[in-house]
């Protein structure tokens, strides 16, 4: 499972956590989790104080831990979101107008210094991004395959739902295919440590993966049509409505975020 990458979440591992573990978050209704994701997105967009964002991030981290999910994996999975934060907020930490933390460094383009405001901005962007990343991962790792498929079918319009359902089903197959191709190349003495000298090998493996996908889709068409496919992949699962106490929590979280935005951010008097 670790052949491909250790800093991109493996959907098989995520699904294994959802199917084989049982924690407090596993018992929460999937619709409630979707509701909380929306509330968190809104919260990290409108909250404007580092302390508030850091508090929200700490709370989500605590939820992740209470759900019995592994922190060590999470650190590795932060690599890609952090890449965006560093590449955007990194330069902003230097360019943001404000009070320099230490003395300015003279450069041919002018003086350069990290400002307190730039540092705060970096912290805010990191907390905003990692809060939602942590919660969506926690939600994905505690929601069963059948429930995710059911919600995809309900939330997306046709034909996007059909495409998404097939994607979800075949992601696991395609990862296995790619992994097998990589293993086969490694067993024949291939070296993946350098890209440019192995570019044709990479192309062959990725091309074979695409080819395998297309040929699978051609076989799938025959099987779908043989079963009388009429534009609707039947879903056998069902996700019930959330219980009233969960619904109240979700509504309460939206009220709190919108209330904060209206009063504290946009300055509307009560």
């Amino acid at each position, binding site marked *: 499972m670790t052949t491909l990458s250790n800093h991109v979440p493996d959907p098989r591992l995520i699904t294994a956590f959802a199917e084989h573990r049982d924690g407090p978050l596993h018992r929460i209704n999937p619709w409630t989790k979707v509701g909380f994701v929306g509330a968190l997105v809104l919260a990290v967009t409108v909250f404007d104080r580092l302390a508030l964002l850091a508090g929200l991030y700490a709370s989500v981290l605590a939820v992740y831990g209470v759900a019995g999910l592994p922190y060590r994996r999470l650190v590795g999975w932060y690599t890609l979101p952090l890449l*965006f934060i560093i590449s955007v907020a990194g330069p902003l930490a230097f360019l943001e107008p404000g009070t320099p933390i230490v003395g300015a460094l003279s450069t041919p383009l002018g003086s350069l210094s990290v400002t307190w405001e730039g540092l705060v901005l970096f912290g805010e962007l990191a907390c905003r991004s990692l809060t939602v990343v942590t919660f969506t991962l926690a939600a*994905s790792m505690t929601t069963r395959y059948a429930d995710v498929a059911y919600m995809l079918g309900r939330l997306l319009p046709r034909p996007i739902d059909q495409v998404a359902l*097939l*994607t979800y089903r075949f992601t696991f197959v395609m*990862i296995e295919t790619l992994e097998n191709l990589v293993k086969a190349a490694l067993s024949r003495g291939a070296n993946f440590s350098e890209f440019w000298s192995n570019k044709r090998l990479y192309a062959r493996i990725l091309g074979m993966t695409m080819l395998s996908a297309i040929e699978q889709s051609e076989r799938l068409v025959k099987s779908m049509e043989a079963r009388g496919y009429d534009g609707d992949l039947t879903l056998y699962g069902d996700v019930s409505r959330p219980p009233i106490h969960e619904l109240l929590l979700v509504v309460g979280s939206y009220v709190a975020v919108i209330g904060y935005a209206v009063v504290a951010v946009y300055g509307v008097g009560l």
Partner: protein
Amino acid sequence: MAHIHLGEGSFPLWALVLWTLIGAGLISAVVYRVRKGGIKTHQIALAGIGAAASFAIFQLNIPVWGGIHMNLTGLVGILAGPLLGALIALVVNIFSAALGHGAVGLIGANTLVNASEAIVAYYAFKTLIQLDWDTFPASASAATLGLSSGAILMGAIIVVSGVNGSALPRADLTVAVGGLVGLNLGVAVIEGVLTGFIVQFLATVRPDLVDLADRKDREEPAGVTA
């Protein structure tokens, strides 16, 4: 998809709403076109499994600059076309956001970027093939062009939106974002070259997949007739 996904909370609320609406508009137009043309089962299957392959390929670490990941959006555009390519971009973004890569609130913006990559790559490839370019330079150039347009669009989206909580003037923000766009353009070239080799490989085993079957027939020597 040789770009860094926009992170959650990086834009103010108005920008989040704006890009979501534009992204939804693009996808609605695509869905309308697809439905109007009467979507076939093979298109659904190709889009579904193509997105799964694109998502799976993202798992592979490419050892350049410490490790990069690719979705081969340019390749997806060339193989699936602009309409299915846009739908695949949306679905891959939804799944990526669910796994913590990209932002749930910025699926609209990220889809615009990726769909533009697929659409530009498709039309560039078609044009270059019609101009009688060979498969490798045509596909490598088309993918690089598509991915570069996506990188520039992403930079433009950041500059138009402004970064949430930053007091930096737009001109200075453009300088800051320039580095990010430059990095993405570098990755676009790498992914473009890789796409070129992949299309070349596919053209040798299944020329029909890249619409080169007719061209191959056309180019075959017809023999001496006189």
